[in-house]
């Protein structure tokens, strides 16, 4: 093949890959086609890689080593991880993407320091965004995996420090772009500061906001890829990088909207860092929580007409999804109608409850979204809240001064009676007290969710 034909073939491969990415992303956003969409986009990636490898004059030994190591680690991590650990894994993967862009930018500069201005600018952006993505994702990973405290780490003047660092990076960026060939040290400082910025930007954000942060960092890593594309003048990189960059921003804002918060609030408010003292003030005069017994609950459930389970983060930590299903089975055998109410932000990642319950083979038809189930509560005999807290907090609806005011909630307090399964007086992610627990309709069943449920299954079967 002539050089020209080869180039055309490679470029056609890139075009096909880009189209497959576009189709894949489109299909990923609808439940029916999502899995096929992911596959299609993977095919696109394969085509892009193969096309690249066809470039004339490539030396392959390091490439093969790198691809092999990366593929083994990636595949192993993807299969070894527990279902509930997936969000942190995504964060980690995303960090590696950022690292790659950082290194590519750096290596390209290292090899050819003197390049046209736009290439230098692209190098700067690839390094900056790549570094922030890299360290930011690592911190997000550490928080989710509880290697770092999940709560926001705040210190005085944090925003000012971050702003100063960013300003310094930009100033150095100008220096660097003006005389790239003489600015090797400047580049190193830029890298160091960008890495630091990545850490400092994410540390003050609460662990439970990490999904949003990861989505944002994902968007960044797309942009870093696009910047790398401008460095090596490669169209498929630019297209897919900017696709991911743009769609990532949209997804981030969709996720924020589901929690009824703005992106600014997520990034800067240190949400979840409310001291217990200030939170306690809200609970004044709410009376006491009323405990109930296992047998009472079992009887109530066994003779109910309709029971709605409301799972939350506690279900995930207790890994109680299978037992819930067993309890539901036992109840259904007795003719009780069982439904599950799924709040969009229950748990710690979007779709957390769906994933858990799907794992336990709960039939899809029993899962109800917020808008579908809320009108049902008034005709529900027992609403069983399993390790959920914020998503059933009536303050969000009733108290306009609440931190979570305006967040749509599952209105369990409209049910005939409410049973709450939790271990004690622990707070939810928001750190707020929950007036639901003090309402006359509510009874508390203390203990680990899995434990309580296991014993409930036995009790119901004997009732």
């Amino acid at each position, binding site marked *: 093949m002539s050089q020209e034909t080869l180039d055309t073939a490679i470029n056609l491969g890139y075009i096909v890959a880009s189209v497959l*990415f576009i189709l894949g*992303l489109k299909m*990923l*956003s*609808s439940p029916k086609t*999502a*899995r096929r*969409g*992911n596959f299609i986009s993977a095919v696109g*990636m394969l085509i892009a890689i193969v096309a690249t490898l066809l*470039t004339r*004059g490539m*030396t392959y030994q*390091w490439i093969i*080593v*790198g691809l092999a*190591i990366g593929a083994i*680690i*990636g*595949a192993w*991590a*993807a299969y070894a991880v527990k279902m509930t650990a*997936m969000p942190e894994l*995504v964060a980690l993967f*995303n960090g590696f993407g950022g690292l*790659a862009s950082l*290194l*590519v930018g750096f*290596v*390209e500069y290292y*090899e050819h320091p003197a390049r046209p201005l*736009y290439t230098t600018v692209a190098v700067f952006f690839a390094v900056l965004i790549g570094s922030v993505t890299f360290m930011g994702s690592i911190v997000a990973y550490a928080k989710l995996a509880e290697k770092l405290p999940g709560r926001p780490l705040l210190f005085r003047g944090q925003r000012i420090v971050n702003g100063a660092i960013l300003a310094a990076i930009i100033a150095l960026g100008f220096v660097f772009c003006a005389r790239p060939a003489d600015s090797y040290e400047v580049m190193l400082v830029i890298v160091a500061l960008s890495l630091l910025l990545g850490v400092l930007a994410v540390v003050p954000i609460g662990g439970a906001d990490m*999904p949003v942060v990861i*989505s944002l960092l*994902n968007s960044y*890593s797309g942009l*870093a890829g*696009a910047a*790398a*594309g*401008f460095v*090596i003048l490669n169209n498929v*990189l*630019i*297209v897919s*990088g900017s*696709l*991911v960059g*743009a*769609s990532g921003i*949209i997804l981030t804002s*969709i996720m924020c909207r589901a929690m009824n918060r703005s992106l600014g609030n997520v990034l800067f408010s240190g949400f979840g860092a409310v001291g217990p003292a200030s939170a306690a003030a809200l609970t004044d005069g709410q009376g006491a929580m009323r405990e109930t017994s296992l047998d009472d609950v079992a009887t109530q459930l066994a003779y109910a007409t309709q029971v709605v389970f409301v799972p939350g983060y506690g279900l995930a930590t207790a890994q109680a999804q299978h037992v819930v299903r067993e309890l539901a089975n036992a109840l259904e055998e007795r003719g009780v109608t069982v439904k599950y109410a799924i709040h969009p*932000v229950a748990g710690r*990642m*979007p779709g*957390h409850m769906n994933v858990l319950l*799907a794992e336990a083979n709960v*039939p*899809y*038809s029993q899962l109800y979204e917020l808008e579908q189930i809320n009108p049902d509560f008034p005709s529900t005999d027992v609403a069983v809240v399993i390790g959920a807290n914020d998503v059933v907090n009536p303050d969000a609806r009733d108290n306009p001064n609440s931190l979570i005011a305006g967040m749509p909630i599952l209105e369990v307090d409209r049910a005939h009676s409410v049973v709450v399964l939790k271990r004690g007086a622990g707070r939810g992610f928001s750190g707020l007290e929950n007036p639901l627990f003090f309402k006359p309709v509510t009874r508390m069943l203390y203990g680990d969710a899995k434990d309580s449920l296991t014993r409930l299954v036995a009790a119901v079967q004997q009732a």
Partner: protein
Amino acid sequence: MILLFFVFVLAVFLGIELISKVPSQLHTPLMSGSNAISGITIVAALVAVGTESTTATNVFGTIAVVAATINVVGGYLVTDRMLAMFKKRDGKR
């Protein structure tokens, strides 16, 4: 170059238009799937390692290839695993 910038602008618009009204249970898979796509930076890593040849480049470049490959391979597989769970459930509909 200017044309590449054009491509960039078009792709940004396309990215914005593509995603809208995603059901919440798909947020995580979508994030993960598009994260895998952002591993496309592997192409740049391959070009760097394959065509340059100082030691520093080889070392850093290879690390870049490893990192990007982890992102790509792991990203697609974990997304598929997540979606497989929904699939199973959907079959029961």
